[in-house]
């Protein structure tokens, strides 16, 4: 085959070199609908089952089927493998497989590829009958030539046509085969995973996909000259592997939640897909409401009736649910709300990660509406957070907002298989009669907590209201009652805060130059950056917050041990040095704002809204730039 441009090679006679690595990132990119994600998911699952640390993250365009061969429409997946636990998507990709050069260009322009990345590229476009396609190819090769990429042409289409009529439906499995050869994956496990992925379809579909897998493997064995060897970790406990939304869904079942009320919204919807598939086998119901508001209303109605309900959404949906959340706080109805955050404001970046809903989740309700906000930091926590959230909601009779995000939602990683317990499940609705004299808001002055009344309990008849009300739930015409009930609702949070423990410092608990504070899905990337910085001699530690409302105790005291405190977040902040920006008017990262207000410590921030998870290497750079007095 003729080489159209510099830097592209076709496989030739070769000696196979095996590179031993401890950590490597692989990307598969294509047009939408070509199955790159399924390929990557299976590759990730097989790797996890073989004992690698794995983190996968999907690259999803905003449209279902954007125009083909378009850099902005690149759809795909990154899989980071390690010889130990992998907690984030890493920095740049070392090995990329691209179904066309435009998708590759999309990743190149986002600096997603390591400067010396090895790239396997579908070769058909170079010799495409359409001259405009050939021209695009040539221009792309020109643009790509400013890096040290090693681009290897692979005749994917040509190969796939030997097995299937429509290669759009087969290249992904061929590529899975290629990667399986390169990384020496267990083909038996890959076959199993393919069988699982196509369960419920005709047997010949699985067979054809297995054929493609084997074809790709054989092609790699025959033509490629490099392989990777990566160590495995000995799992001390049985592990499971899934993404954050699957973990939320299974966590909801484990928590005894019975009703999931939702309206479709990216990137939260796959939780409902998952629940739709499995929930009803456990007696649960997924209610797809007519809108986001109704989804909140149905969940609140069910919870009022004594059932365990939750609603799941993303930023725009959270905005719509706001009034109902205020009602639930005011009338003290337990409610779990999962917000899988995406880029905002407005519809923003529907498929991309951001942590911009923190303040809206905390303060979005007009009026004073104290409630609990917590953020899982890992996929494992996405599972366990559901039981925690339900229990807190019920114990405090209030709203608990769980802030996940698109990074956790689509990230896939193994975690220790939970030892499930029936005790995690909720009790059936209490139907015992209410003793005489007990009132629906008999606030305990020590804790602000009162007994929950549930329809069916004789003697408990009353009308719950969102209007200011007294202990008997009577509409308050006395302003002192509003002050008192506000105090009681706030006291619940204070009493709860009293039960929290101070978070643990990752690094030097005794203090140092810089403390990086994070929350939610950035934990893995931050801790990896901190470990690298410490290995380079920097006096830096980190702190990760699970509870954002109320904040855990001890923060001010911990902050006091460090010369500088800085949050790292995926939300917007003004950059120092930009026009008009002063220390006074600077708009800061959301956690930074919160911490400054609550601790009166001068907490700085470093934040980015690039529509992608933070890269540990970039955080490391930010740490270096923000070391007080420079690096030592």
């Amino acid at each position, binding site marked *: 085959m003729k080489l159209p441009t510099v830097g592209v090679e076709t496989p030739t006679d070769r000696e196979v070199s095996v590179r031993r690595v401890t950590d490597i990132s692989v990307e598969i990119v294509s047009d939408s609908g070509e199955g790159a994600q399924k390929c990557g998911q299976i590759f990730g699952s097989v790797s996890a089952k073989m004992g690698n640390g794995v983190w996968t993250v999907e690259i999803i365009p905003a449209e279902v089927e954007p125009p083909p061969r378009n850099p902005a429409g690149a759809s795909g997946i990154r899989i980071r493998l390690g010889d130990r636990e992998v907690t984030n998507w890493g920095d740049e990709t070392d090995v990329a497989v691209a179904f066309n050069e435009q998708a590759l260009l999309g990743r190149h322009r986002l600096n997603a590829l390591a400067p010396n990345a090895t790239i396997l590229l579908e070769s058909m476009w170079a010799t495409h009958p359409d001259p405009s396609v050939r021209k695009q190819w040539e221009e792309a090769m020109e643009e790509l030539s400013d890096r040290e990429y090693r681009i290897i042409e692979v005749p994917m289409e040509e190969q796939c046509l030997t097995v299937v009529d429509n290669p759009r439906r087969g290249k992904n499995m061929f590529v899975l085969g290629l990667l399986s050869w390169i990384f020496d994956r267990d083909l038996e496990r890959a076959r199993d995973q393919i069988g699982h992925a196509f369960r419920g379809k005709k047997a010949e579909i699985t067979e054809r996909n297995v054929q493609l897998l084997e074809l790709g493997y054989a092609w790699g064995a025959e033509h490629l000259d490099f392989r990777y060897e990566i160590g495995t970790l000995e799992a001390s406990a049985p*592990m499971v592997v899934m993404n954050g939304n699957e973990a939320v869904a299974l966590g909801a079942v484990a928590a005894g939640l019975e009703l999931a009320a939702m309206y479709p919204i990216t990137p939260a919807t796959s939780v409902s897909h998952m629940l739709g598939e499995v929930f009803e086998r456990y007696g649960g119901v997924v209610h797809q409401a007519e809108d986001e508001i109704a989804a909140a209303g149905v969940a609140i109605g069910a919870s009022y009736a004594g059932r365990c309900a939750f609603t799941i959404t993303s930023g725009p949906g959270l905005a719509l649910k706001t009034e109902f959340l205020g009602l639930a706080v005011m009338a003290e109805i337990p409610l779990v709300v999962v917000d899988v955050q995406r880029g905002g404001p407005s519809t923003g970046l529907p498929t991309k990660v951001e942590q911009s809903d923190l303040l809206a989740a905390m303060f979005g309700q007009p009026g004073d509406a104290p409630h609990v906000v917590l953020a899982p930091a890992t996929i494992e926590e996405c599972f366990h957070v559901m039981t925690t959230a339900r229990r807190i909601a019920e114990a405090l009779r209030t709203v608990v907002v769980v802030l996940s995000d698109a990074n956790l939602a689509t990230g896939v990683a193994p975690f220790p*298989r939970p030892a499930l317990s029936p005790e995690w499940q909720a009790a059936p609705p209490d139907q015992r009669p209410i003793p005489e004299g007990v009132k629906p808001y008999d606030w305990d002055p020590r804790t602000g907590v009162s007994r929950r009344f549930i329809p069916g309990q*004789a003697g408990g008849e009353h009308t719950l*209201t969102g209007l200011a009300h007294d202990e008997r739930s009577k509409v308050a015409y006395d302003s002192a009652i509003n002050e008192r009930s506000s105090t009681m609702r706030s006291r619940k949070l204070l009493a709860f805060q009293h039960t929290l423990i101070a978070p643990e410092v990752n690094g030097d608990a005794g203090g140092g130059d810089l403390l990086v504070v994070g929350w939610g899905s950035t934990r893995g990337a931050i801790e990896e950056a901190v470990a690298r910085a410490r290995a380079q001699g920097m006096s830096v530690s980190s702190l990760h917050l699970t509870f954002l409302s109320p904040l855990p105790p001890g923060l001010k005291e911990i902050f006091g041990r460090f010369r500088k405190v800085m949050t790292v977040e995926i939300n917007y902040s003004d950059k120092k040095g930009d026009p008009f920006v002063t220390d006074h008017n600077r708009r800061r990262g959301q956690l930074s704002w919160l911490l400054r207000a609550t601790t009166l410590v001068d907490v700085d921030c470093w934040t980015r809204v690039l529509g992608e998870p933070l890269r540990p290497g970039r955080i490391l750079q930010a740490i270096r730039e923000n070391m007080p007095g420079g690096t030592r």
Partner: protein
Amino acid sequence: MSDSCSLLHVLHEDEDDRHFEMGDYQGPTARWCSGCGDHSVLAAAQRLLTDEQLKPETTVFVSGIGCSSRFPHYMKTYGFHGIHGRALPVATGVKLTRPELDVFVVMGDGDCVSIGAAHWIHALRYNVDMVALLLDNNIYGLTKKQTSPTTPQGYKSNTQPRGSYLPAMNPLEATLGVTNASFVAQTAEWVPAHLFATLKAAHQHRGFSFVRILQRCPHFTPDMYSEAVKKPALVQVLTHPEGIRVEGLEQLYPNQVRHDPADIHAARELAEDASVIRLGLFFRDESRPRYEETRALGKHTAREKIDLLNEEFERYAV
């Protein structure tokens, strides 16, 4: 301990020999204006509960916001006085997960036909077994005389002082157009016997019973139906053996028309024709699927759920 207690309660319920008087359902004195149609509806509802001997603890009145939404406060049952326009989703959540409860929804015209219109349309389609009352006085009362979707065209209000710009929305027409609607009736607060009979038929219907109640607001629409109140001939009563039957009503309201509530086309025609005020059952179909039946919660024990979940985890095992 708690389990055995609730079991005892269930046993107790089985041999429930309580008898309820009207007073057992009556809450504090209603704070509506004198002459407000809401009083009539409240009295009819309390009479219905007495008639049907509904247990106060398993009866739930859900409302939104507005004058009429204070309704639950004046009942001695469970009540949920929520937010404007959103009574129906809350009621859906209650009945869907606790089908053994008797659920009533009380909405005003702004509540149901304006801000909550999306829920109204979809509640008809879900067809969850509950009684939904639209207390329609053609005006926003609590916020002091603003135009509502059912305000007649040309009627002056504080927001449209030169008169309402648009033709009034006809809730019956809208309702009868929704797929899976199963019970649509209209009654009037000034015909208490018909009001009560309608509420009773609505409660006995298995499905979502939509009842529009024509009302006057003594402050802001006092003359809205004064002609009809004075001249019964302007009111036409729908009659049918399968419809709402009120003994002796033909003496007061001789203008009667036979209408088979199974006939949706005739129902739509009658609803569309605004030349006369029609009271009665426009449509009923008990064969329509009910959401709380097709989407009932399962009855798995905690242990069963955990066992099933453990099986599920096998799929994800490394």
